[in-house]
């Protein structure tokens, strides 16, 4: 016997109005000559641009903070190993990248535009042809060269002190895929609905750089190329092999999904063993920090000292310490936890 359930707030009228508390202004897609520093950040919000290098930081906030920067840096230093999407975009989508870079430079008032890319002689000549007037700064082809901190170290001569971001030094560092998205919106009027990404499956000798629609499920992407993906023996590594995360086939392609790599499950399985205190993490850390000491102190609760906090703040979680650890200790996950609970 059914009884009517009475909930006071559920007893609602049928003609509820549809509200939109996050309403924005009329859609404004300016031409390339109508860039206005005042409205440009709103335009970026309009097209839904986030940091496409993997951070997902709202681009409008960055542009606002960077107003008055003297140099725009096109960050195409693909630091994640085994992934080449930034280089592909830089090489093959030059018109859009140029449009986006010019628009951003105009919006913040930057006079010079530099392209930071991996040092590769054959490609540097080609890049000069495609990007006349841009400075090209080659970077070593090693991980992690593409972090903003390390790019600034090369451009400004010294590593920026802890807590100082690139915009405070007068540089606007934008990922090349973000600039491509800006250019796409300016030239073609298409907002950020596509994501260039590397799709790879090493065991099947498959490697492609593709442009995938944002929101498509990963399974559909895999099916489009008939990749023999089996969830029992493979895992999906999204957004890079070093700083990425495991994805499920039902997950959508996001704006920050820089890559999709299908790896055999047993190759990435790790069994943690006690630390042998070899110091491999110390030697490998690109910032010269002491990863295991940080983890050890955070686990023991000795987190009060200023030296500890300074080092923990400096770490940008590149994951090299975990990758080199002979005892397979997940150092970078522990560091993430330590950063979250001070």
């Amino acid at each position, binding site marked *: 016997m059914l009884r009517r359930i009475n909930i006071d707030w559920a007893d609602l009228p049928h003609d509820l109005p549809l509200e939109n508390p996050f309403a924005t202004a009329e859609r404004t897609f300016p031409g390339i000559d109508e860039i206005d520093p005042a409205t440009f950040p709103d335009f970026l919000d309009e097209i839904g641009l986030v940091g496409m290098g993997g951070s997902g930081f709202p681009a409008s906030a960055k542009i606002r903070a960077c107003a008055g920067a003297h140099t725009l840096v096109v960050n195409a230093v693909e630091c994640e190993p085994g992934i080449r999407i930034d280089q592909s975009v830089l090489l093959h989508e030059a018109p859009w990248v140029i449009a986006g870079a010019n628009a951003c430079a105009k919006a913040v008032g930057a006079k010079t535009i530099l392209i930071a890319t991996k040092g590769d002689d054959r490609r540097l000549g080609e890049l000069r042809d495609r990007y006349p007037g841009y400075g090209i700064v080659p970077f070593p082809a090693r991980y992690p060269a593409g972090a903003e901190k390390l790019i600034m170290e090369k451009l400004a001569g010294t590593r920026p002190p802890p807590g100082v971001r690139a915009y405070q030094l007068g540089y606007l560092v934008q990922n090349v895929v973000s600039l491509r998205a800006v250019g796409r919106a300016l030239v073609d009027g298409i907002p950020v609905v596509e994501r260039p990404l590397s799709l790879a499956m090493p065991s099947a000798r498959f490697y492609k750089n593709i442009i995938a629609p944002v929101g498509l499920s990963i399974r559909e992407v895999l099916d489009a190329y008939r990749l023999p993906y089996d969830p029992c023996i493979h895992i999906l590594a999204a957004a890079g092999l070093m700083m990425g995360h495991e994805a499920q086939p039902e997950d959508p392609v996001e704006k920050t999904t820089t890559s999709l790599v299908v790896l055999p499950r047993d190759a990435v399985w790790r069994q943690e063993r006690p630390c042998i205190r070899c110091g*491999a993490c110390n030697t490998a850390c690109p910032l010269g920090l002491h990863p295991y000491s940080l983890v050890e102190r955070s686990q023991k609760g000795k987190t009060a000292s200023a030296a500890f906090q300074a080092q923990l703040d400096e770490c940008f979680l590149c994951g090299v310490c975990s990758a080199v650890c002979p005892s397979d200790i997940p150092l970078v996950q522990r560091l993430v936890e330590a950063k979250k609970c001070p």
Partner: protein
Amino acid sequence: MPIASPFLRIGCRSSTMAAWTLAALMVPSIIYSILYHSPFAFRLAGYALLGMLAETLYVLVVKRQRRLVCMGSGLTAAILAASVPPSLPFLPMLFAILLAVWIVKLPFTGLPLRLNAAMAGRLFLMLVYPAHVVAWGTSTADVVSCATPQELYRSENFMLAWPELLFGKIDGTWEELFALVPGSPGETFPIVLLLLGGILCWKGILAWRAPLAFLLSFSLATALCGNAPLFNLFSAATVFSAVFIVSDPVSTPMSKSGKVACGFVIGTANALIREFTYYTEAIVYAVLLGNLLAPLFDRIAFELRGRKLLRSKAAR
């Protein structure tokens, strides 16, 4: 730990590191066995197996786990066997290996203060069986000079000029020094050992900072004491210690600067003990001293790094 980023692995695992070092240690002992027709290589392999067996037993009893291949303890036992005279009887070796593995090595796993287990076992042998440990066999140049020729220099009142300082006092020993200086079996072929050390460093198994700092500071301190640095480098156990003992990743500090400081302390202490005391096997004390200082060096390096970061932040 479940699967998490980074999905890549660089370098080798801890057991592989020990296996490579053990393989490197087998090279000079096999050459020794061939040249001197001794079964030493087989003894070394046997002692290594004994060390592995000891760790298997320990793990079975203490942790209730089964682990068959225990490369770390095998390496400890092999280094211990390679650094004592080949004529040492079985029973003292057994005691030393059990002490090194069961008391010094395994219970300290994961703690900040680690001692070099092979050196601790050797210290035990020196204290309990002093007669066996210095029975080096045939009396050749290196045996007469004991671990170092400083004793000879001092008793004979040699006044050494600089060329002699560089090349040592014993005539016509270059080929012997490089190829055939009998001593303990592991430390017999300095050039081969240097080559092996280079290969291991290149493969990323050894950290090069501590051994290099050890060799440099040892040469410097020996020269300052007025002895021949090159002769001291290539005789006795100096190169062997640098490649297999000072480079030990477990008992030296973790930080880069700490490794340099530890190598420096070990090298200087080694030279000073050889020069000013009557102990023959100076390296044992020097290495254990360096190991005791390792946590301190790590702490200092950590604090200094943090302070440097804070300073650059404040300067901004």
